[in-house]
């Protein structure tokens, strides 16, 4: 108690100070008013507390004021005018001014507005009424600090939505997998994005500052409304709009942050290499320098963001317009990203509010500077940095880059960064226009037209002098364009008949996507200065160096949904969607995607009335079928595509070679995902503790795959076909609680937990068979073509399959287990074993939000991934003294040698490591200053990303993506994770 007392004391000083500032402001303000003012106090109707900052406006004009810190307002106004009192979260009130010069007002809290709403696709629903597995994350719950991608704001916030990123490259995106994804042998496992109602839009068209909310449709019963594209779940992003507020708001926000390498590899230094050579009597060419190559390649990055938005309007029209500019420096020299996003959202009502017109227009302009990394090639920066001998100088005495060929593909990474041009210029446009007309009461028609376009241009150049001229140089320009047109019509009917409440929707959607691109390249640049800016500088351009493409696909859908509830106790939702896609075979272009779900509001029952501790208990069950069509275009048909020039043996003339990809399959159809979901929502002690628990079982069938077929009789040895089954079972829950909730101090904590198990059931179509699929090929010297994973029935994706390490022999050789249970030093006699999985056992997210005296707030987010195994190819490559003294190695190589290891590295479980981690993703502390005259709010904050990571993993970072069919391989392609410190300011006018 004493503690609370003392805590109350401090802010009083602040409060008094603020009061003083306000009073001065008030006096200044008041002196500007004319005579005969109307005065009054605005209070909360329930608590009686005065309300600060309430908008008071003379209706039909732009004249008005706001209430001060005592809730007082004063405004010159003639009798007969109407005053409009509006305040966020309260019901607007209008009062006609009479002769009385004092008007005190009590505003009622707007329950409808306070009740959380979820977006469910083609509509919204009260959160408590939902029947499917839908989660909603609001803007204020998003991650703070530097967000290189808007989806980062959702990381760790929604149970079952695993958002990860391998490394800290500002130019690479996040892997998002909902409930373990669905299928994905050849189809993608990332979810469908729906932005402002338009499906298939890239989320990077949205600036994080413009996001109002994320809504995730996790289960098939909820996602079935998106039919053939719902199998991996749906993420709906809603951007901020003008809303119903009257008056103008200007928001300006900015931050600056510094980024540093969070963890680097522990490599030997020059002295250690020299000592090693001396100890072991090895002569080697000492470059004479002492260089920490990681220092030469890494840097401290600075990122900045500026964003400005204007919101305003009146009763019939509203707008929000914003522009945001960010600049991210990568911690590897030469990598950076610059992004500008602009957006205009308009809302207009007409015909006595019966017609609503909404539109949005957004543009994203992005410039990227890339560095090559990810393999062990001659231009791969990380590999070159790690292997580089620290005695080799960066430059010669003449100032030229120093290069020597100590070994194959051994080149100076600083020179590579300096000499290679690798840039991208991307532009994305997104626009929609939507008209909603109320035809008769309860029946509305909506027409929505949308267009998106993603254009990108790439510049790549390697000079002919690169790497001592062992290359003929390369110049390349590429354009990749994508556009999508969508036309959607929906009819919506909503009505209540006594206790029967019905909402139904019927719709049609037509979408056409088109991909076009152009690429030209050549070698032997005549003058390197020109880079790829003018390709006519290239002397050697071959047939096939110029390529282009142009292909499209059409998706047509009919859909309907009915939501019914009886007396807000029993809820039923039924959805049906029929999708047709041009991607499939002539016999199977159309597919059905039905779903049904129900919810029982148990707290609505009589027998629950006595259990007052439980204020909410709802049971949900859902079943649905969703589809996946994310394969390339025209895979059901046999076609020939140009594959470079060739020579005709008959005529000895040059010809264009045509090759075929796959045999025709007129039966090719949708990959489908069947899912059953059981959910329980609860609220205890008036939602002091609330949450949801979900269990689900998914079965993906008719898996799209590429099967081998015999040649002869077939011309192509592959065919696209449907077959195979994959099961996913999972459990997830989220709990939200208020461990402390008082007038001046609030602590909200939020925990998400998710776990799932994936199992391949079969890889057969009945007609065609697919053997175990080798995956996860490691790319190290001498290890090219060694698989580390296998996809086979009985196991999930990411299953490690390799010889199992059985210790060292007395003379320091690796020992492996054999099939007979013994051990062998002969790698070729080792048994391949299932030695774990890259898929995590579970993921936990823990978010905390603190508010002190309504002014000071703080938040932090912890995320943990447990039970994943990572194959550390970086250690396989650099963790062995065999490369010394010419190539650098990790400190652990000396430790291994000291233990007696004296053998060549081979792919085995010796290099498999626990990739579990706990990470303090995000920490922020902010202070809000309200009601400075002329300012609605000023917020200053400090934030940090990736402040702390706890892991046993020995590589750069244990976080990895989980998309696709192979993951968990760390082979010098982990761009260092960054630790950022951010200072930011948000100003609202």
């Amino acid at each position, binding site marked *: 108690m004493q503690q609370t007392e003392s805590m109350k004391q401090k802010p009083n000083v602040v409060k008094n100070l603020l009061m003083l500032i306000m009073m001065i402001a008030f006096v200044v303000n008041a002196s500007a008013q004319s005579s005969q003012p109307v005065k009054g106090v605005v209070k909360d109707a329930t608590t009686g507390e005065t309300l600060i900052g309430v908008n008071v406006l003379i209706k039909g004009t732009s004249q008005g004021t706001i209430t001060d810190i005592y809730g007082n307002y004063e405004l010159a106004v003639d009798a007969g005018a109407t005053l409009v009192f509006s305040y966020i979260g309260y019901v607007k009130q209008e009062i006609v001014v009479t002769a009385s010069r004092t008007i005190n007002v009590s505003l009622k809290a707007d329950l409808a507005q306070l009740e959380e709403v979820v977006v469910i696709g083609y509509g919204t629903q009260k959160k408590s009424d939902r029947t499917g597995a839908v989660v909603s994350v609001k803007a204020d719950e998003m991650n703070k600090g530097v967000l290189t991608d808007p989806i980062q704001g959702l990381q760790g916030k929604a149970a079952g939505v695993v958002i990860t990123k391998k490394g800290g490259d500002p130019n690479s995106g996040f892997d998002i997998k909902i409930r373990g994804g669905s299928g994905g042998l050849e189809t993608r496992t990332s979810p469908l994005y729906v932005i402002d109602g338009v499906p298939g839009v890239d989320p990077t068209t949205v600036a994080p500052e413009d996001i109002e909310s994320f809504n995730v449709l996790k289960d098939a019963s909820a996602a079935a409304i998106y039919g053939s594209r719902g199998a991996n779940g749906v993420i709906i992003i809603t951007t901020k709009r003008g809303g119903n507020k009257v008056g103008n708001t200007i928001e300006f926000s900015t931050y600056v942050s510094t980024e540093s390498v969070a963890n680097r590899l522990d490599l030997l230094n020059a002295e250690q290499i020299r000592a090693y050579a001396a100890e072991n009597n090895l*002569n*080697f*060419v000492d470059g004479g320098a002492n260089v920490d190559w990681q220092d030469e390649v890494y840097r401290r990055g600075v990122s900045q963001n500026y964003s400005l938005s204007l919101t305003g309007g009146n009763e019939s029209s509203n707008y929000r317009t914003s522009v945001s500019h960010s600049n991210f420096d990568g911690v590897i020299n030469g990598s950076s990203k610059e992004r500008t996003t602009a957006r205009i959202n308009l809302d207009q009502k007409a015909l006595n509010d019966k017609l609503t017109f909404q539109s949005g227009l957004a543009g994203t302009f992005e410039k990227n500077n890339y560095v090559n990394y990810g393999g062990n090639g001659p231009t791969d920066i990380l590999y070159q940095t790690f292997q580089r001998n620290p005695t080799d100088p960066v430059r010669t005495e003449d100032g030229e880059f120093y290069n020597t*060929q*100590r*070994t*194959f*593909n*051994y080149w100076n990474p600083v020179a590579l960064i300096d000499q290679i041009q690798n840039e991208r210029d991307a532009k994305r446009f997104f626009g929609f226009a939507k008209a909603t*007309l109320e035809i*008769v009461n309860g029946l509305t*028609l909506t027409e929505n037209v949308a267009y998106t376009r993603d254009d990108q241009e790439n510049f790549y150049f390697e000079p002919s002098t690169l790497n001592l001229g*062992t*290359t003929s140089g390369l110049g390349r320009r590429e354009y990749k364009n994508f556009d999508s047109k969508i*036309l959607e*019509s929906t009819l919506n009917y909503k009505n209540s008949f006594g206790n029967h409440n019905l909402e139904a929707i019927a719709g049609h959607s037509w979408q056409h996507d088109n991909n076009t691109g152009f690429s030209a390249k050549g070698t032997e640049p005549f003058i390197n200065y020109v880079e790829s800016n003018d390709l006519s500088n290239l002397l050697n351009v071959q*047939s096939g160096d110029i390529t*282009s493409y142009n*292909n*499209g696909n*059409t998706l*047509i859908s009919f859909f309907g949904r009915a939501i019914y509830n009886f007396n807000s106790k029993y809820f039923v939702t039924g959805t049906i969607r029929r999708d*047709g896609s*041009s991607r499939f075979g002539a016999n199977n*272009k159309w597919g059905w995607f039905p779903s049904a779900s129900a919810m029982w509001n148990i707290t609505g029952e009589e027998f629950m009335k006595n259990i007052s501790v439980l204020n909410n208990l709802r049971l949900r069950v859902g079943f649905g079928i969703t589809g996946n069509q994310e394969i390339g275009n*025209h895979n059901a048909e*046999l*076609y*020939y*595509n140009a594959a470079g020039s*060739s*020579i*005709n*043996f*008959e*005529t*000895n003339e040059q010809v264009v*070679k*045509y090759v075929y990809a796959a045999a*025709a399959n007129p039966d090719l159809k949708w990959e489908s995902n069947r899912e059953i979901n059981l959910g329980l929502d609860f609220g205890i002690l008036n939602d002091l503790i609330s949450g949801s628990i979900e269990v689900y079982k998914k079965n993906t069938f008719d898996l799209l795959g590429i*099967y*081998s*077929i*015999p*040649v*002869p*009789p077939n*011309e192509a*040895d592959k065919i696209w076909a449907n077959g195979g089954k994959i099961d996913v079972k999972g459990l997830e829950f989220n709990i939200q609680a208020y461990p402390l909730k008082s007038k001046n101090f609030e602590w909200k904590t939020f925990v998400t937990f998710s776990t799932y198990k994936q199992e391949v059931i079969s890889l057969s179509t009945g007609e065609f068979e*697919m053997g175990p699929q080798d995956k996860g090929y490691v790319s190290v010297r*001498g*290890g*090219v*073509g*060694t698989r580390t994973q296998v996809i086979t029935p009985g196991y999930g994706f990411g299953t490690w399959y390799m010889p199992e390490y059985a210790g060292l022999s007395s003379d320091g050789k690796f020992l492996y287990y054999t099939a007979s249970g013994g051990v062998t030093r002969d790698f070729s006699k080792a048994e391949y074993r299932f030695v774990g999985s890259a898929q995590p056992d579970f993921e936990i997210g823990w978010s905390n939000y603190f508010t002190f005296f309504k002014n000071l707030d703080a938040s932090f987010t912890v995320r943990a991934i447990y039970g994943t195994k990572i194959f550390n190819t970086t250690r396989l*490559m650099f963790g062995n003294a*065999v490369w010394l003294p*010419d190539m650098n190695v990790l400190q652990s190589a000396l430790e291994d040698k000291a233990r007696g290891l004296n*053998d*060549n590295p081979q792919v085995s479980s010796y290099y498999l490591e626990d990739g579990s981690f706990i990470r303090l993703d995000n920490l922020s502390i902010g202070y809000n200053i309200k009601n400075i005259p002329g300012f609605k709010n000023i917020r200053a904050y400090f934030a940090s990303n990736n402040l702390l990571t706890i892991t046993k993993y020995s590589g750069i970072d244990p976080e990895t993506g989980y998309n696709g069919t192979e993951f968990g391989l760390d082979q010098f392609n982990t761009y260092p994770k960054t630790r950022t410190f951010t200072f930011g300011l948000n100003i609202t006018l």
Partner: protein
Amino acid sequence: MKNTYLILFLFTAILIGCTDLDEPIIDKVPSNEYTADPIVDMGVIYAPMQEFLDNGGYWFAQELTSDEMVCPTRAGDWDDGGKWRVLHQHTWDNKTEAIASMWSRFYSGVVQANKFIETYQINADKPVVAQAIAKAKILRAYYYYLLIDNYKDVPYVTSFLNAEQQPNKTPRATIFNNIVSEVEENYPLVSYSTSKTAVTKGMVFTLLAKLYLNAEVYTGTPQWAKAEQYCDSVIALNQYSLEGNALAPFVTNNQNSSENIWVIPYDEDNYKGFNLHMRTLHYNSNQTFDMTAGPWNGFAVTEAHFNTFEDNDVRKSGFLVGQQKSSSGADLVDPGAEGAPLVFNPFIPALVMDATYTQVQIRLSGARVAKFEIKLGAKENLSNDFPIFRYADVLLMKAEAVIRQGGNGDEWVNMIRNRAGVDSWSGVTLSQLLEERGREMFWEAHRRQDLIRFDEFNKAWWEKQASTPDRKTFPIPQWAIDANPNLGS
């Protein structure tokens, strides 16, 4: 209310209007549009040969399984999961890369030939088409010759439209008889041509000579006289002759070499696929040849085979041994081998050189091969044409066929030896002949077949233990069995 109906009508109209899912292919060629004239269409039948020296696996399977070539494991380099090692030690299985790759290249040629023959049958009354069909049948026979040589019993399919979905295997001898008679039936239609890439009479006679020379391996019945007859047919064409210099057929601009009968016309830009120099040259050998690509330091000749060359043998200059020099004549060093001089040593201490070997041993062991000229400024692919059939080979086959029939082959063997600058032999024995073939035909993908015909393939040499007779052919790849279980038994 009128408006309501109008709106609902429009809504319905839109629904019905938009159901067209037709999406034509415009940036690729649909199968019904893919036609040209027969000469252009023949190109796809030859196409699989482009990959013979690299991803196709053919060269690897013929050379690395033999006693003349090896790809040693050089510490962490070139082990590649054992895919080279198992070839040399005859411990491959049906997933080994080279074995899995060859199959698809050979059958791709067969299927394209089948399709071509059936597509153009309707116009077979035109002489141009008739000759093209004859050539397609001969090419198909060539691919079946490679199939029975490498895989023994394989499905024998000669139709595209009426082929069985999952054909069974046909015995090797049956296929042999069929293809021999098909080639003999069709070659009269092949007109005279100086082409070294198209099917010509010279190519056909050499193919028949090869088939008959190996008839005993394929059928159990030797046919030496027939082999000799077709060697004579090649000689009688008077179209081919030995070059003066033993290495002249292998220079960069060898497209007009009088010695080459049938070649793969590689080009560094327009017909890539000949990159064996990248596999054999040392990382730093790029400085010797001013290359614009850094080679990979892998393949080497076995020491025993290197030693079969006499010092004055002109062909020995096709090896790189001893101190290597830069293009300007300076001695090269290997910075990765403790700065040691870049000296190739023919001695290879072990097939697997692990960390216990010195960097000099690991990196510099084994003589390297430059039989095919590596021009200054060579790129990652060479422009030298690669001979499949060569006149010197025909002369040696002639000698072998004569000796095997009890005759004397000195004349033809000595033509080869004298050109190489080594002494004549008299009373050449079969084992001498095999040795001479080893020297003359080295690196040209004949060694495996030769060793099998002389029954030397399964013997032990160096780090290769004696292998069982079933290793004379390769197993059918697992992926092909997965696609057609009838190939499994």
